[in-house]
């Protein structure tokens, strides 16, 4: 074995260790401490924070909502991202580079800025409601801010590029002649897409879903701005525990539970993908 690659990646690994693992471990240990309203954080070791979260239906609701939002976001990203990636794949090279820029461009803009954009659009006096009212299509504004639906909408917009890129990568791995082969056998464009292209990019859709789901489940800025205190998700709850209630150990326990559940879902998903498609497609 050559040792060079290890040595060359050592700085990155160190950075990774310091910046990710250390805070993660600290959070992990913190979650076993206890908190008293007058005493602050006490350096004890117990499972009480975990017991509190698991036994309280309030937290169950928040976890349920978080995963429902993440699932819906994943679904809509797949629904929009797959056709978008296919169109991208079929474009001529000159057009493709322009459209890739349009697809990836949003990633260059802060999530906060993009979410604030959605807030402007979705508010009761926002662009969409004003327009609909002006045209006389609705009488009273439709409530979109501070709803799960609004969060899903914005998250879909935020994470769509990841799905597009994952599916696009899968499209590029497939033999470009298969579509021509199907066409020569008499298939129409939609049939080619459904019967030939789609089944071959399913691994790409699944890996894109994995990325989108885990990012949506742990997203903070978008639910914080569009959901506020009224539609809480796990990440915003953790934030509140840390900064408002100042119950850091409880916040740490919620954060660890989120991390653990996302990881369990990811691993289960990954196993499913590998078992189903690992061998089916090279």
């Amino acid at each position, binding site marked *: 074995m050559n040792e060079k690659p290890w040595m060359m990646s050592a700085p990155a690994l160190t950075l990774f260790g310091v910046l990710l693992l250390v805070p993660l471990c600290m959070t992990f240990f913190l979650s076993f401490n206890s908190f008293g309203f007058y005493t602050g954080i006490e350096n004890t070791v117990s499972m009480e924070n975990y017991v509190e979260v698991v036994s309280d239906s309030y937290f169950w609701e928040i976890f349920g909502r978080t995963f429902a939002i993440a699932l819906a976001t994943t679904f809509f990203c797949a629904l929009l991202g797959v056709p978008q990636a296919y169109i991208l794949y079929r474009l001529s090279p000159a057009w493709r580079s322009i459209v890739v820029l349009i697809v990836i461009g949003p990633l260059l803009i802060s999530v906060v800025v993009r979410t604030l954009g959605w807030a402007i659009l979705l508010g009761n006096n926002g662009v969409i409601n004003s327009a609909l009212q002006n045209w006389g299509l609705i009488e009273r504004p439709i409530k979109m801010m501070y709803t799960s639906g609004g969060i899903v909408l914005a998250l879909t917009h935020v994470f769509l590029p990841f799905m597009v890129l994952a599916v696009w990568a899968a499209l590029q791995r497939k033999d470009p*002649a*298969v579509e*021509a*082969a*199907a066409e020569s056998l*008499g298939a129409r464009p939609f049939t080619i897409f459904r019967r030939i292209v789609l089944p071959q990019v399913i691994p790409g859709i699944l890996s894109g879903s994995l990325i989108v789901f885990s990012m949506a489940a742990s997203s903070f800025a978008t639910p914080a701005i569009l959901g506020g205190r009224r539609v809480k998700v796990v990440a915003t709850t953790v934030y509140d525990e840390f900064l408002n209630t100042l119950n850091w150990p409880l916040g740490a326990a919620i954060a660890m539970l989120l991390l653990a559940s996302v990881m369990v879902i990811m691993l289960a998903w990954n196993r499913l993908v590998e078992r189903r498609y690992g061998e089916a497609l090279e």
Partner: protein
Amino acid sequence: MAFLEAHGLTKTYGETNAVDNLTFTVEKGSFVSLLGPSGCGKTTTLQMIAGFEDPTMGKIKLAGRDLSAIPARDRGLGIVFQSYALFMHMTVAENVAFGLEMRNVDKAERKRRVADALELVHLGHLANRYPRAMSGGQRQRVALARALVIEPELLLLDEPLSNLDAKLREEMQLELRRIQREAGVTTLMVTHDQSEALAMSDRVLVMEKGRLQQEDSPFEVYERPRTSFVSTFLGKSNNFEAELKSVTPTASQLLIAGRGLTGPSVNLKPGTVEVAVRPERIEIVDAADAVITGTVRERIFLGAQWMMNVATPLGDMLVIRRNAGRREAEIGDTVHLSWAPEHMRILPLNEVAA
């Protein structure tokens, strides 16, 4: 009447003509090869016939009907792609059945025809396998069965054997011809491999830089190349310049390296020409009968034959001699070379030839 006709077929990409004014015909039931070096426009030609590329100019007719307004999916041609383009998520039987499904063939008949097609390519026992679990040769047969099951009027093959190793390639040459004969399907094959084209085809179309150089039977293109390119691309050839003095209907007078020689008659005007002689037609003779004298530079023993490189005033000449069980000239020996007049091919001078 010709079954497939191409008239002035041209495809331009930007400035360059990938295919340049190509006119040819393919007879019903025959096996025709489109032969040429990589990048000469073979695939582009095939794509235009298949309907995946629109010709910039020219017409393609199949059984008398103009194909230009017919989309690829309605042309009903069988196509085998260089990469095979199998549907990796479908079994062999599903791959083969796909074209029949698209034609709404009912289930019972579909099953029968898929079985027949797989039988034809000797893959009946692997119907339920996935392509990924098959060898290159087997994938090739699946691609062939998938193209043939729709009973195409015309079968198009793009470098069908180029992804196979040498031994399998020879086997598949024979196999492909058998399948083509049994299916009785008119076939146009694209290849850059001259021995493949010679071995398999009824007729060979030699292309260079988008242009048709010659269309003939394999024997004729090898024996009577009409251009310098064809003479060197098919088999080995010694090409050199000569002076054409005069031509009569039965013979021609040539001046080669200062010696007058009689050659076969040719349809060329007197002037500088190119003469091609196959290495296996050159003999080593006594000094008195020599056309040219040279020194052996290299000598390779190939078992059944000797291959020699002889430096002569005409340039390096390749000489191939059958191993007759005698000792041959050694490196450094002076040898006298000669050839029969009828083995000379007199060609128009090719300026670009080295």
